[in-house]
């Protein structure tokens, strides 16, 4: 599926650098410090050896960024698969504060809206087919399948509780 070649370079005394070249030749990647600190790195356009930016990210920020980058791909894939089923849509819905620390079963999404939760995305990780006892965290993205109406209701429920 992917032809991205991630290069892993140890940085003795500091941590590990993982990066890859974009189609345009610039490089993008992440430095993981030994103490767990994460930095996003982007190379300069005129000098691929140097970095334009080194942005320190907190764990939450890194998780949010990876959800933003990872979820659309999954949603696009599911949408493509459901193309021949009219009226069925896939959507990513953020989990709001009311359900922070509560289980998926507590949302009762299926009973209230008819929407199915296909996966929960957290920190760039996909948790497929979550069971009702799956514990949610605010900021998780739910990948859901259902009718437009059902999905709209699900958005409201997840936001307000």
């Amino acid at each position, binding site marked *: 599926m992917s032809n991205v070649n991630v290069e892993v370079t140890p940085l*003795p*005394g*500091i941590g590990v*650098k993982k990066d890859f070249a974009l189609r345009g030749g610039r490089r993008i990647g992440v*430095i993981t410090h030994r103490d767990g600190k994460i930095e996003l*790195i982007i*190379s300069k356009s005129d000098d691929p050896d*140097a*970095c334009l930016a*080194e942005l320190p990210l907190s764990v939450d920020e890194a998780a949010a960024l990876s959800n933003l980058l990872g979820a659309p791909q999954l949603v696009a894939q599911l949408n493509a698969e459901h193309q021949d089923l009219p009226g069925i849509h896939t959507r990513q819905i953020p989990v709001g504060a009311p359900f922070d620390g509560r289980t998926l079963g507590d949302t009762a999404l299926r009973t209230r809206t008819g929407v199915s939760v296909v996966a929960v995305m957290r920190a760039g990780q996909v948790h497929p087919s979550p069971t009702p006892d799956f514990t949610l965290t605010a900021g998780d993205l739910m990948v859901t399948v259902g009718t437009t109406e059902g999905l709209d209701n699900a958005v409201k429920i997840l936001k307000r509780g």
Partner: protein
Amino acid sequence: MEHTALELIELGAVFFALGLLGRLAGRIGLSPIPLYLIGGVFFGTGGVIPLSGIEGFTAIAGEVGVVLLLLLLGLEYSASELVTGLKRSWAAGLLDIVLNGAPGAIVALILGWGPVGAFVMAGVTYISSSGIVAKVLSDLGRLGNRETPVVLSILVFEDLVMALYLPILTAVLVGVGLAGGLTAVAVSLAVLAVVLLVALRYGHLVSKVVDSPDREVFLLKVLGLALLVAGFASAMQVSAAVGAFLLGIAISGSTAENATKLLEPLRDLFAAVFFVVFGLNTDPSAIPPVLGWAVVLALVTTLTKVGTGWFAARQVGIGPLGRARAGAALVARGEFSIVIAGLAVTFPGIPPELAALATAYVLLMAVLGPVAARVVEPVARWARTRIPARRQAAAPSAGS
């Protein structure tokens, strides 16, 4: 009672003054090491404020400072990182030894300090300050750069070379002659190999011995073990510092990280005392006569370090700008040059001018290094637009 009061006041004044100097260094973006040295020179014999009565404490505290400097250096690297560093950069590492050891040795010979003095000065001008270099790279946002792994591997290589150099230096200073020197080389090579092997295979066991969930217990165990190892190494004439370095390598994983966090403030305290003690033992009036040589050495070894970095970066296919950056990043000399000179000056055969030259040299290089790393990029860019045709021909020194 009066005596104790005076000692406490003196010690307090020294630490407080160092704190102010460290803050000043931070303000102007410098490593605090040169300022600590200057502080020591001022407090010391012939200096502005001569101190007396605390030598007993400062001497042993300085020794502990060296042990902690090397212990934390060892903790920073895992054994596998050392092995990859060795594999990746041995060619550049050897060039580094020749290019940067030679200037110091030659100057020492010209000044008539003999082969032992030459060996000491070669070490002083050879070894980059991994502390200053790592800080500069992170301050300038260059950790993600492609030449940075090259720079770090060279630092790793230098640190391993030092693990061999210090025992040999100790043997040479004691005056054991050629056969004894060779024995020291063999012994230290064997010990280094065994420690790397043990650390790669059984590092978790060593970590287990010192590890403890209780901070206090952990601190006491790590520090105690480090001093024990250093003491025994010293008794076997292998150099206390190297013993601590090897212990640091053998401790691995999360234990190493926790130990680093706990020991860092202690290292900063005792290392500061070590630099001050070195400054104390340097007679300020001995510096002006050797200042000219220090400047010559500073200029020459800046060029040779840039050449080393340039060569190493070119080997892995980094562009000209990156090569210049790698070279300039390595320029700084600091704590380990002083460790080497500090070890040497305690022996009678070494002229006191050597301490003065080492002090002056490190003062220059600790300031020059970060500056070089900062200005190299604009200078290299300017050079590229200015002399595009001559670039190829003048490649090895164009970055300076």
